[in-house]
């Protein structure tokens, strides 16, 4: 093919492409009722104003210094560099990652097993699902305050009393830099497992029962059935739940805020807690917005990488 032929082919392709695009717009316009657009506009505007507005505002705020009274001053990358040079940031980032890891190892398998268990209990399954879901009904603040009693470090604390019967403890729980984060993960798992298990339970309903029947004929035990049939069938939902959990764990706030205030010795200080302290304790909204921006970017990148890595498995 000569050079001019190539140019001609490209021109034709371009023309065809653009005419197709024009056609699509025209078709869309013709097929859409004007009334529908009129009805949709307020909803879209509300969405833009209340949902995207704050995001854009937050983005601008991260480059400004403001006291919310006078006009904000533009400070360029000042807030970002201030936040990045905060000596507490690496600690908070590590703590957050440590929580995410612990939650993944301890907390992630629990709802899957719960769901499989509830699914197996054909007659009384509803009872177990109700029991498992109960913690999700409890307001988080109430649940955390309740667990604060459980974690009382004295010998008379509820957990310490129970463990005392078997000769263990008393443990300092939240009062030790080493135990505070695992203690928070334990509570978070208890609080979140039920709601997640319900989602898995719904997904289990779609697993083809013939596979189990075939496995039973092959004399497969319950573990082999779970491992070879249930888990692979749940693969897609597991991957989505894992991503959601990762994002959720990086936004951990209520537990450390109410349990420990970030202590002891900043052992439970998380990124979200830092953002809160910048904004509402120090009144430094620029720094809070800057750190939020960094967290949001990080979560975007994490989600992207996660999608890439897991694409192969989920096909």
């Amino acid at each position, binding site marked *: 093919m000569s050079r001019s032929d190539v140019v001609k082919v490209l021109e034709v392709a371009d023309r065809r492409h653009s005419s197709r695009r024009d056609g699509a717009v025209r078709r869309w316009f013709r097929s859409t009722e004007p009334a529908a657009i009129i009805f949709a506009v307020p909803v879209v505007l509300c969405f833009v104003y209340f949902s995207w507005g704050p995001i854009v505002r937050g983005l601008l705020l991260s480059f400004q210094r403001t006291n919310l009274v006078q006009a904000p001053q533009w400070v360029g990358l000042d807030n970002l560099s201030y936040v990045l040079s905060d000596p507490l940031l690496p600690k908070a980032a590590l703590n957050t990652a440590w929580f995410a890891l612990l939650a993944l190892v301890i907390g992630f398998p629990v709802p899957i097993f719960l769901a499989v268990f509830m699914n197996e209990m054909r007659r009384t399954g509803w009872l177990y699902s109700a029991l498992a879901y109960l913690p999700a009904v409890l307001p988080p603040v109430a649940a955390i305050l309740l667990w604060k009693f459980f974690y009382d470090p004295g010998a008379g604390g509820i957990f310490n009393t129970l463990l005392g019967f078997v000769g263990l403890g008393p443990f300092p729980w939240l009062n030790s*830099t080493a135990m505070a984060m695992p203690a928070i993960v334990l509570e978070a798992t208890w609080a979140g497992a039920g709601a997640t298990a319900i989602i898995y339970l719904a997904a289990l309903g779609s697993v083809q029962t013939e596979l189990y029947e075939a496995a039973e004929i092959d004399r497969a035990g319950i573990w082999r059935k779970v491992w070879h049939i249930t888990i692979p069938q749940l693969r897609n939902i597991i991957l989505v739940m894992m991503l959601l959990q990762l994002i959720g764990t990086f936004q951990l706030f209520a537990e450390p805020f109410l349990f420990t205030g970030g202590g002891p010795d900043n052992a439970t200080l998380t990124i979200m807690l830092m953002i809160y302290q910048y904004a509402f304790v120090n009144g430094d909204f620029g720094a809070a917005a800057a750190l939020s921006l960094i967290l949001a970017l990080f979560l975007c990148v994490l989600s992207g990488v996660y999608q890439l890595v897991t694409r192969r498995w989920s096909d």
Partner: protein
Amino acid sequence: MIARRQVLATFAGIAVAGPLVACSSGSSSGSTDPNAPVKISIGDRPTPDNAAALKQYNDTVAAFMKANPNITIDTSETVWDPQTFQAQVAGGTLPTVLSVAFTEPALLMANRQLPDITDQLKSMGLLDQLNPAVLPTVSRDNRIYAVPIFVYTFALIYNRKLFTAAGLDPDKPPTTWDEVRAAAKAITQKTGKTGFGAMTTKNQGGWGFTNMVYGMGGRIESGDGKKSRLTDEPVVKTLQLLKDMRWTDNSLGSQFLYDANGVTQDFAAGKVGMMLHLPAVWSDLVKKFGMKAADVGVGQSPQAGTDLKGVLTGGNVRIISIKASSEQVNAALKWIAYNDFRPFSDKAVAVANVKATLANKDFVGIPGVTPLGEKQYDQYLEWIKPSVNVPAAGFTGYTDTVKKMPLIAEPPNKAQEAYKALDTVVQKVMTDQSVDPAALLSDAAKSLDSKLSR
């Protein structure tokens, strides 16, 4: 932090038309007509479950508007809440007048979120009435930004029953840190309870530690607020004391994540022998947590030795919205004078107030520091004497020295950042035996200095 509403209820005025301070123009933004119609909003309205206080509040507002026909007041239940305050500032929904704790004005002044009211205070004759010792909390660069209406200093709150059980004299509370240490040790050894409960979280750990340092003769920041002073000897000594009490005497118990409320609860439950708190906590301990009044003792904030080094002040101030016009600022100050100052200058109001407080089953006579002149305050105390319903004996340790004790304001620059840094320091000393107080404070000083320079 403390039941401010109960405390303030003591001082809410009732319907008596009293003489009002003459008001003239004085605003920096130009002359204002004192008789022009103006509308202001005030927060801190008691909730309906607090019927007596609500009636008193409404009556005061009605009487004020009758006496000042040009001023209209809107009331709301809005109370100070750090989480909604900034949104209210931004949205313009902040009441014109609101009561906030002493810990807040420093940050609000630094953020330029409070109006300069110095000139109006002067021209209305209110400035002369205020106790100069409490002004630093509401001043920045010699200008005044809020009105102190209620002042307390830190005190040593102790459980008289545990003192007796530990063989200590409940009528002679410790006044020095050495005595506190010995008493704490005795309480833990004899009763098994926590000898001394220290706050460590929500910046209240740093708040309490700052008061300890003041008693030791130290400071957290230099006078201009540009440099931290955490490596000074009194600060290191204070931290070393906590370390010794924790690890040598084992008298600090096992809970090292107390905020002010948490330690108060455990104190009321008889689990803690001593704590540093404001005397106003007395009413929480007795009314809210059901502790026996006779078991609560209030002593002076402990000092390094017998000479009085000083104490951190706390209490409440009235702030005025930054968005208020100069007419509104004038009207707001008139309201503050009417509502908060008059009970001290008018016997009828003082007595009526106290009666309403008693009707509400609240307490009269918890000692404090006067936001106004000394003489006026003594006169006021004389007026209310017949109605006092707190046992004076429980407070003698505090009242013995309260008039002589130097009052020291919060750290001048970024107090909350300093408190946050000190929270961590205190927590670390209590949870890690190997830590060296001097090195720890040196690290904290470096990190605080970088914040102070922002």
